[in-house]
């Protein structure tokens, strides 16, 4: 098949299948993975605000000993600061970016690293939430002991060891779940992007090497 000769048919092709709307609002919502990421981030922002407000009243809804309030609100403040940083700043960042007008390699590279950054954001956010969750659980466990007129020193050494092992197992499972979730949710898309980028860069690296080798040969000849 002669592709050059096919160009006339290509240029005169029927384009009736393309429907240009009379108004922009008739276009449906964007479904691109990057737009979905932005939509998810906006949803998470609202969920986060409601959760933070709810957690602010947690000691009142599920009472603990007043002496433990200081520790609870110290960890709560930590949670608010981390959440504000991770969610608000990233939401603003992702809503500002637009990656489609640069050349293909640059555009895909930026999308690729934005997704990688988002994956790391989920990892870091999850890992930072873990200590806060452990503090709250410990506070409620300690509160239960206080109500019974006991403290952690009154627990048997076997029970304390069991608690430590349980905490480690739960923490590890939590971390692995976050890693598995991001890999399942974003992994396939990131891998596909990487494949295209490698394809774009592959020959470039070979050509650079050939040019370098050519220059080296010329240097050797000149040296002779």
């Amino acid at each position, binding site marked *: 098949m002669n592709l050059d000769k096919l160009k006339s048919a290509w240029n005169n092709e029927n384009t009736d299948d*393309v429907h240009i709307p009379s108004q922009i609002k008739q276009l449906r919502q964007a*479904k691109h993975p990057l737009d979905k990421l932005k939509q998810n981030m906006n949803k998470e922002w609202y969920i986060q605000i409601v959760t933070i407000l709810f957690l602010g009243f947690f000691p009142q809804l599920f009472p603990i000993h007043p002496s433990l309030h200081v520790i609870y609100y110290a960890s709560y403040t930590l949670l608010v600061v981390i959440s504000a940083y991770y969610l608000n700043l990233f939401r603003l960042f992702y809503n500002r970016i637009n990656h489609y007008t640069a050349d293909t*390699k640059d*555009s*895909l590279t930026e999308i690729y690293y934005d997704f990688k950054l988002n994956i790391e954001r989920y990892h870091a956010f999850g890992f930072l939430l873990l200590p806060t969750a452990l503090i709250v659980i410990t506070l409620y466990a300690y509160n239960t002991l206080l109500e019974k007129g006991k403290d952690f020193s009154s627990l048997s050494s076997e029970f304390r060891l069991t608690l430590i092992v349980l905490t480690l197992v739960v923490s590890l499972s939590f971390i692995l779940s976050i890693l598995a979730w991001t890999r399942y949710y974003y992994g396939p898309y990131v891998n596909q992007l990487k494949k295209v980028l490698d394809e774009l860069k592959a020959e470039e690296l070979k050509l650079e090497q050939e040019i370098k080798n050519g220059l080296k040969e010329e240097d050797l000849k000149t040296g002779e």
Partner: protein
Amino acid sequence: MLTDYSSEKTFLNLMEAHKGILHKVARLYMDSPEDREDLQQEIMIQLWKSYQNFKGDSAFSSWMYRVAINTAISYFKKEKRRSDVYDYSSAKEPENEDYNPEKDRQLEIFYLAVQQLNSVEKALIFYFMEGLSHRETGFQLGISEGNVRVKLNRTKEKLQQIIKKTGYES
């Protein structure tokens, strides 16, 4: 001039004038009519979102090529190799004003064969068919002119091999 470019009506008129790009990119990257329509819509959305950044210092078509190809490559939705099971002998012959049965049949075979290329190869073929030079294609893809030459030659050979396998001879 920026105010002209930023108006919705001007944008939609430009879409109408360049709808061939939407049609061709969608046909290259998606093999079902539903997916093609989805991709055309997605490209229009991304074009509209980026439109305010279009300063008019390059041809609208060049800018549109770039956004359309970048969107198609990074969209990935439902990009299945369904052409593997297609019966090439039953390729439709679309009817239009300049209906040329042989040329249109060739174009159908070409589109079915292109489905077996990867995203970068499809972009190279698109720019080749649109008549862009190696230099211009390299500029659009962000790779060197030499790289375009090597890749395009390989892609054309690969495409010819795929077409041969279908039993098409011409």
